[in-house]
């Protein structure tokens, strides 16, 4: 069996054809409205992503890391979280940020190059993006240890943490160390691996010979593989894992089996390393299409609803675009802001001397050469 074959252990509640199926360990009862909300979420985050990609093409963003194809993995896990749960993303979890109430516009800032994360993680419980592969898994584990110390596990006010990372990230020492610490301290953290089959150009086979979810057992906690293109299964599996964590039963590894439909980032050219037919095959498993056909079959939606969602997406995209274009560049002096909480006299001196230097150009009425 190739590691890229999901295998029978794949947990699914909604087939690519939009059929609702049962799973012995995971059930999910949703109201009609909740089904529709999930659909809306999926459509909106895809639109955010497409708009951001377009903005990048037009030079308004320096780069963009697309989530195309991974909407269900992100919305399913994002919606599984309670408000008090904390998420530690990579650089691709725009849909999770959206679930946590972060204005998507703020998520553009980093890619536009005006900041390195401008939302407040303490308000949204959505940590800043972490670009160095794997590092955030340790932060998540430490944060979860803090939850324990605060006595927020095992009771009604239980809190949990999700650490997001990719298939490639599983090869980093930090991720494996996070597994160890989480296990040893029984920390309330869910390790949520979006296996999108690639680490830039490298296929899964470069990282492992066995399915990734199996990694967990050797560290002493459960691992499960869920269909990451199935928003219902992802929701159910992640919710169960978070509940386990918040009840004090320790970590779980969730491998969300999915596919990166686009390039790694807008700087990447995937035609160099993968064939079109593979992408075509995954198109048939589209995370949004299956929800749409389910909703249709169940007659949960009508054309008006779909149009309303489209309109909402249009409005969101327009707001994003306008907001992005209007984003001011930071002032040069911002270079010196927030290096230290308590400041540094040396840096103050550099700030002042740079200001003096710049003001000389202003006085002379010239720009830098």
């Amino acid at each position, binding site marked *: 069996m190739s590691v890229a074959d999901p295998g029978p252990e794949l947990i699914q509640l909604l087939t690519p054809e939009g059929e609702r199926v049962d799973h012995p360990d995971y059930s999910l009862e949703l109201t009609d409205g909740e089904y529709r909300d999930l659909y809306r979420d999926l459509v909106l985050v895809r639109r955010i992503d497409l708009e951001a990609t377009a903005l990048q093409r037009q030079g308004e963003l320096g780069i963009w890391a697309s989530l195309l194809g991974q909407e269900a993995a992100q919305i399913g896990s994002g919606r599984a979280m309670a408000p008090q749960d904390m998420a530690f993303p990579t650089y691709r979890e725009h849909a999770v940020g959206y679930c946590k109430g972060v204005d998507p516009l703020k998520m553009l800032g980093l890619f536009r190059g005006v900041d*390195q994360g401008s939302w407040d993680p*303490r308000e949204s419980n959505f*940590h*800043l993006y972490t670009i160095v592969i794997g590092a955030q898994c*340790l932060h998540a584990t*430490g944060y979860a*240890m*803090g939850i324990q*110390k605060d006595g927020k596990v095992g009771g009604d006010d239980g809190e949990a943490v999700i650490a997001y990372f990719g298939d490639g990230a599983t090869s980093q020492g930090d991720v494996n*160390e996070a597994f160890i610490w989480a296990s040893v301290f029984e920390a309330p953290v869910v390790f949520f691996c979006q296996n999108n089959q690639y680490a830039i150009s490298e296929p899964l086979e470069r990282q492992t010979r066995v399915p990734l979810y199996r990694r967990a057992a050797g560290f002493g906690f459960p691992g499960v593989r869920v269909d990451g293109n199935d928003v219902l299964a992802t929701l159910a599996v992640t919710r169960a894992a978070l509940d386990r964590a918040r009840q004090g039963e320790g970590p779980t590894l969730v491998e969300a089996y999915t596919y990166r439909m686009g390039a790694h980032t807008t700087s990447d050219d995937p035609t160099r390393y993968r064939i079109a037919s593979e992408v075509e095959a995954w198109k048939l498993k589209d995370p949004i299409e299956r929800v749409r056909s389910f909703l249709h079959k169940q007659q949960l939606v009508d054309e008006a609803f779909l149009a309303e969602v489209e309109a909402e997406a249009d409005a969101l995209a327009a707001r994003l675009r306008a907001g992005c274009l209007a984003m001011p560049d930071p002032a040069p002096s911002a270079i010196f802001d927030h290096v230290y909480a308590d400041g540094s006299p040396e840096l103050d001196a550099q700030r002042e001397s740079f200001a003096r230097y710049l003001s000389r150009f202003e006085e002379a009425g010239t720009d830098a050469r």
Partner: protein
Amino acid sequence: MPAETLTLAKALNTGLRTALERDPKVLVMGEDVGKLGGVFRVTDGLQKDFGEDRVIDTPLGESAIIGTAIGLALRGYRPVCEIQFDGFVYPAYDQIVSQLAKMHYRSQGRLRMPIVVRIPFGGGIGAVEHHSESPEAYFAHTAGLKVVACSNPADAHWMIRQAIASDDPIVFLEPKRRYWEKAPVDPDAEPYPLFASRVLREGTDCTVVAYGPMVRTALDAATASANEGGRSLEVVDLRSLSPLDLGPVFASVRKTGRLVVVHEAPGNLGLGSEVAARVQEECFYSLESPVLRVGGFDTPYPPARLEEEYLPDLDRLLDAVDRTYAY
């Protein structure tokens, strides 16, 4: 509490204890810091009194020690991490320079990192490889970190308390071969500021700048020189390696016209280079001779039987002072 005569290690221990007592958010974590009390016993007795929840024996992984400390800090804790020896901090280097140092900046000041990374540093204890390193320049070159080094028991006690109280991430260097040196520590005294250098001995002929383990050496050299009717040395203890507080050094050099900087770390790109670069810039017309640097040689730390030769000592320091008079 009245002033007590303590070893440097014990002074750190009482400083940690005070911090743990006064702030329930303070944690101590690292390899063997609990039951064993650390290989140098700096955390001796702390787990017994504050529990396993606050004084944590961790799995064996430096990257995870710092990485989880970052997570704990995000949750409102103030972790004090022990790295067992200088040479074992490098597995955590990524977490320190890419995460710990940058979190406050990245978050536009929203996320504070009140984390202290304690590192016993330097040589002179006859140890095997990786147990005698002086990695301070690696951290001092990193914007977003602060780096301090204590040189005596009173400073050790106060500086660790001040470092824990600071909201910035601080690499806290402890001169391991001075752990057993004793001096009075008054835990009620008015503390000297953490990020300030200090003139420890006044003199007129040449300024000597040192920090950590070399402060003792510099003071001994000054005494020897004075006793032998030689030159009068002014000794400055840098204390803070980043940010540097060079005001007192500039003032001293303007007086003496000569400067020798001494440290154990290799000279190439060591702190001495930075001090020399700044002093020649600030005191260009006051210098009677170039700033000279005395450091470890630009080799890996040698086997223990060679460390006396490798490490700067009183003679090499005084030789450099002499050389400033040869210009």
